[in-house]
């Protein structure tokens, strides 16, 4: 009897203890990935909440900013394309005055990467949505001051890649058989040892993106704080009609 009571007391004491610090242990875990697909009905209150944001956004994205008289392409040339030339020319046009004013220097040339041009512009109405398609990333324009040696690396990279990387103000004629440079001028200047050149590009490429390592340690780096997409949108707003340009700025020797 005595042992029985003490057993109960111990049990009660234990139960008080466990009551205070009730220990819960995981016994079982079940996990599933729930697909959010078209079989699920939309919560209409959420969709109604989004609606004015969506409509306002679509209005802004789809309103015509300018007209394109040309069907731009990313593949209409060997070493230059109409789409690449447009991006490079617009970027230079939108930044050169501001850059001169702020730093008292002239941008010499532009280089982007062909892979960074994510879409081309159709003939007809051009909207901010087109700019988002061409440039979905948040890349910003930067200006790098490069030495003569780095400029040569840049040119050799361009020749070796055999891709129509967008450029402006770089005149280059390459011998297709030997890869020799037959003509090279940057901003109408000869490329001379000891000189430096200001190259407009994006922060992504400056960081070594697309293996453009010649950009990574410039003599001087100037940030513009201007997103490439916004450069396009601002330019479209100012422009009446976009014209396509293929001017053999970079080409193989005939």
């Amino acid at each position, binding site marked *: 009897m005595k042992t029985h009571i003490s057993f109960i007391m111990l049990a009660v004491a234990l139960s008080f203890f466990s009551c205070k610090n009730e220990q819960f242990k995981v016994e079982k875990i079940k*996990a599933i990935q729930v697909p959010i697909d078209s079989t699920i009905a939309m919560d209409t209150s959420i969709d109604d909440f989004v609606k004015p944001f969506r409509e306002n956004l679509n209005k802004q994205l789809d309103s015509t900013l300018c007209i394109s008289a040309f069907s731009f392409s990313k593949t209409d040339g060997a070493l230059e394309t109409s789409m690449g030339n447009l991006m490079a020319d617009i970027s230079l046009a939108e930044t050169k005055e501001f850059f001169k004013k702020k730093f008292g220097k002239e941008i010499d040339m532009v280089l982007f990467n062909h892979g960074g041009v994510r879409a081309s512009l159709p003939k007809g109405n051009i909207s901010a949505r087109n700019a988002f398609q061409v440039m979905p990333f948040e890349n910003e324009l930067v200006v790098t001051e490069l030495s003569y040696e780095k400029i040569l690396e840049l040119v050799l990279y361009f020749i070796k890649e055999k891709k129509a990387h967008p450029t402006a103000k770089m005149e280059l004629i390459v011998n297709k058989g030997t890869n020799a440079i037959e003509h090279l001028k940057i901003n109408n200047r000869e490329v001379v040892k000891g000189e430096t050149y200001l190259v407009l590009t994006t922060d992504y490429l400056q960081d070594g993106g697309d293996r453009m390592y010649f950009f990574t340690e410039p003599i001087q780096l100037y940030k513009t704080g201007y997103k490439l997409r916004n450069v396009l949108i601002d330019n479209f707003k100012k422009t009446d009609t976009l014209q396509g340009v293929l001017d053999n700025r970079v080409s193989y020797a005939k």
Partner: protein
Amino acid sequence: MQNRRNFIKQTGAAAAFVGLGGLTLQSCNQVKNKRITILHTNDVHSQIDPLPISNTRYPGLGGFARRASVIHQIRQENPNTLLLDAGDIFQGTPYFNYYGGELEFKLMSKLQYDLATLGNHDFDNGIDGFLAQLPNASFDFVSANYDFKNTVLDGLVKPYKVFIKDDIKIGVFGLGVALKGLVKKDLYKETKYLDPIELAQQMSKTLKEDEQCDLVICLSHIGYDYKNSPETVSDLKLAKRTKDIDLIIGGHTHTLLPKPTIEKNIAGENVLINQCGKSGVYMGQIDFYLHNDGTKTANGKSIIV
């Protein structure tokens, strides 16, 4: 359905106890079964509407309005549910460019998110841009390894948060990815990145020992695994080098795990790691079944994935 099963289990266990010594007179001594549901998303990247049908990887998947329906249904079934996000809420659609994250935070509040951590893209409008949107978020942000002391977020982002659901204490801490090289310094400013593993060890100790949490969850944006860069810290490494973490909810690498990974921690216990791709195409649902029956061994934990 669940309640019925619990009821059967409880009565069954109670009957066994009566046979042993009538101890069930103490109500707190009853064997109880509880279920905690964890729902999670990661890298939603401003995907407010479903992805377009033309999307090559996840055609037509995702969208807040659909996700809301699923969450509502799960919460009705089990009110003891936590909804978490592992970061990169911002950036990816023009909604972010035009509204700066306002819609993302407002919608997450409407869906009653409980907690989130910061991803690198949540700095895309600068730390000030993030702060500007915080009033639109009814939920908190946690990060244990971002030191915001000398930034505008000082005091606004805590290392962890403890929730109590059905008397179960759930501790959730946040981890962020190294910002250098990933985000421009002018955006993250004086935010200091600290070692995730060190902080995770501290956090799990705090949550398990000081806060006496029953469940410890890590909300991580450090990435699942880096095969080409074995030195880089990842969720897999984190799981192996820590203890007392029950679940790591991941992000950053946009990994769609067909099912959660089970990894052994430093003490040889199982850790669950999950990540759900990107853009809200999938939502993870992890159900923890707990009991207070000390007679069952702790090793009996079964994971059904």
